[in-house]
């Protein structure tokens, strides 16, 4: 699992050269945290671009969950609210709720995850995205963590 995470981190880092500022790693678990994204304490990320916010789970989250075997996602058009569950990820290990870091209406769902749930592991910040939301209160983003803050949060959680 470490090996695949490292490979993953390298790949995401490379990708980040074109679309994002450099990524940096958690010292303890080699998970990648991207600059420019916002993070929830329940380990989801959100990328706000124009009128749409994309939501997924972090590299740290997928690393802890292990191989994702099923992703349960809602329909386009349903509304989500900040802090509430909109779906679930099933790994070999366990079932986990996915919470939306922001409120709004779902405008797109990543249907590729139906056939290839493993994208959540191999590409948590890119191909493994889950939903796109039209935020109803974009100010909610301000209460989320930045990359540095989230990295620190994970390190503290790990050390428990």
């Amino acid at each position, binding site marked *: *699992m*470490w090996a*695949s995470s490292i490979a993953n981190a390298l790949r995401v880092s490379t990708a980040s050269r074109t679309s994002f500022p450099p990524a940096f790693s958690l010292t303890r678990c080699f998970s990648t945290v991207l600059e420019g994204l916002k993070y929830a*304490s*329940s*380990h*989801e990320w959100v990328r706000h671009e124009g009128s749409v916010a994309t939501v997924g*789970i972090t590299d740290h*989250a997928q690393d*802890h*969950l*292990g*191989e994702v*075997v*099923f992703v*349960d996602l809602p329909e386009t058009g349903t509304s989500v609210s900040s802090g509430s*569950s909109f779906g*679930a*990820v*099933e790994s*070999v*290990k*366990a*079932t*986990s*709720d*996915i*919470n939306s870091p922001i409120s709004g209406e779902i405008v797109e769902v990543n249907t590729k995850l139906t056939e290839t749930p493993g994208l959540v592991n191999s590409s948590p910040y890119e191909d493994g995205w889950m939903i796109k939301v039209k935020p109803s209160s974009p100010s909610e983003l301000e209460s989320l963590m930045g990359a540095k803050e989230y990295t620190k949060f994970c390190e503290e*959680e790990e050390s*428990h």
Partner: protein
Amino acid sequence: MRGGLWQLGQSITRRLAQADKKTIGRRCFASDADLKKTVLYDFHVVHGGKMVPFAGWSMPIQYKDSIMDSTVNCRENGSLFDVSHMCGLSLKGKDTIPFLEKLVIGDVAGLAPGTGTLTVFTNEKGGAIDDSVVTKVTNDHIYLVVNAGCRDKDLTHIEEHMKAFKSKGGDVSWHIHDERSLLALQGPLAAPVLQYLTKDDLSKMYFGEFRVLDINGAACFLTRTGYTGEDGFEISVPSENAVDLAKAILEKSEGKIRLTGLGARDSLRLEAGLCLYGNDMEQHITPVEAGLTWAIGKRRRAEGGFLGADVILKQIEEGPKIRRVGFFSSGPPPRSHSEIQDTNGQNIGEITSGGFSPCLKKNIAMGYVKSGNHKAGTNVKIVIRGKSYDGAVTKMPFVPTKYYKP
């Protein structure tokens, strides 16, 4: 039952540790100081073990390999598990067998010395107190291993009955093997690798057999048994020799036998169709309902004489009202407590264990359904998060077992 992502990895602990209600709902920092450690604790940490609370112990849920890879590797090569949290117990005395037969469903008297079997401790209502592998070492010495989560309850139960039995003049006493550790070595490389470490000929030792022998320089109790469906052994080793033995096994396998945690152990036993006490078997479930009628034995069926025998023998005669069966299903993997419906949407039962099978690459589950819905091929619906998914009753084991038999 579900945890958010922030409870990462803790969910399985709760799922696996239901026998120990204290563990439920604890988070990562579940007062680690209270947790017991096996002598292999530091060894686990050095090898990358992710330690979690389990039945009052700090145990590795996985190491560096993923649960998927660990599960597959056990069946392709082999796995080494630390199962020292389980409780080994010896009962000794000339009346040991009649004493134990009052508490379990198995034909202990009928076992040849040096052999063992799976059995169930029952209560007055015929429900299961615990399942256990019981071995007749000699006619006046029984060795058994009970679940960690049931240890206190089992020991209290046995002690109460032992007091009463002794007060009537019965000769039985116990010894709890807290001076020993327990390693499970499972998979196709288990026997060839263990053979490097002992002079005894393991090819003459079959599934269910027991020996006291020297392994890697230590006097061990060896049982050819396990909880994965593979050929393999459980090795009770003096605790001071446990780390050396674990190292020797890994070294002799040239890295092919991997340290394996509780996560893969759960996948493996589910694929093998084996019950997890606390999930698939509980106080109110009888061995007949659980599909373990085979463990009762002809003589015990004729004579009874164990707790709850009246209920259990009547169920054998009339057929149980509910039965444990296996399922394949589509959609998300069923988990404990998922509702089972017939194709008309009527409730017929509940899932007790389920997950994605790393070896079959599809969902497998077990649960209880009302009799009549239990035949292989019966179509069912399994309800997960309010949606119903197609499933079908399937024979178990899901993955063929490979026990070493003559």
